[in-house]
């Protein structure tokens, strides 16, 4: 197995674990944790392709990861603010009970 393959497999596993957490758990904070894991899996893919691909001196993959980390930090801040606001209104962080907008 080449190093690139093992990096990509690690990233795929991490993405799938994050996706399972985001889809299956009932707590909104665990859903956010799953989303963070998926973002990290994408970052690992960028770094692996930067490292083992051609034109690594252009640093494109690395720059993408830097910007992606910044966007993830902004996303975590806004997401947690939304969860806190939601908890203040309906006193729960359980996504099964947030049904006032469902049809």
């Amino acid at each position: 197995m080449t190093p690139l393959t093992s990096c990509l497999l690690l990233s795929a596993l991490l993405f799938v674990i994050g996706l399972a957490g985001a889809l299956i758990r009932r707590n909104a904070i665990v859903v956010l944790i799953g989303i963070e894991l998926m973002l990290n899996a994408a970052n690992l893919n960028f770094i692996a392709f930067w490292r083992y691909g051609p034109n690594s001196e252009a640093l494109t993959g690395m720059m993408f990861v830097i910007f992606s980390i910044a966007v993830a930090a902004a996303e975590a801040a806004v997401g947690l603010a939304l969860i806190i606001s939601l908890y203040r209104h309906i006193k729960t962080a359980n996504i099964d009970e947030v049904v006032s907008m469902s049809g």
Partner: protein
Amino acid sequence: MLFTIFAILTLAGAVAAISLRNLVHSVLALTLAFAGLAAVYLLLGAQFIGLAQILVYIGAVAILIVFAILLIREAEPASPSMVVSSWVGSVVAVLVIFGTMAWAIERSAITQRATGSQAEASMQQIGNALMLRFALPLEIIGLLLTAALIGAVTIALREKGEGR
């Protein structure tokens, strides 16, 4: 060899983060996953990204999640079930997605002709790239971060007319 150790550490942390019942424990496991990933970045020769990962994810995001957990006071879950009611379909979808990705990675020609080039990125190269070629995206990211922080404060602020 080192890569395998750090990969197992990362995956174990990720699995614990989404499966533990106590939310504070699950954030601790999440920091373990982030630290393992930072070590993988260092192994891959991306020193700056590895250190930024430690600073931003462990130092900021994980702490932020801990603060949110303490604010909503649900460290001890009241409900007996941790999973949503429609979890069977989700598990099937997750397995199908992983199968597709693993199949694509195995079949892909890119993984076979990957170069073994020693890609390195010094701080000077990163700074040059950020200040010259990627100057506009850097400014836009700064604007986005400012807007997101103001938005987060506005959303989380106590609304008028709401009792203490």
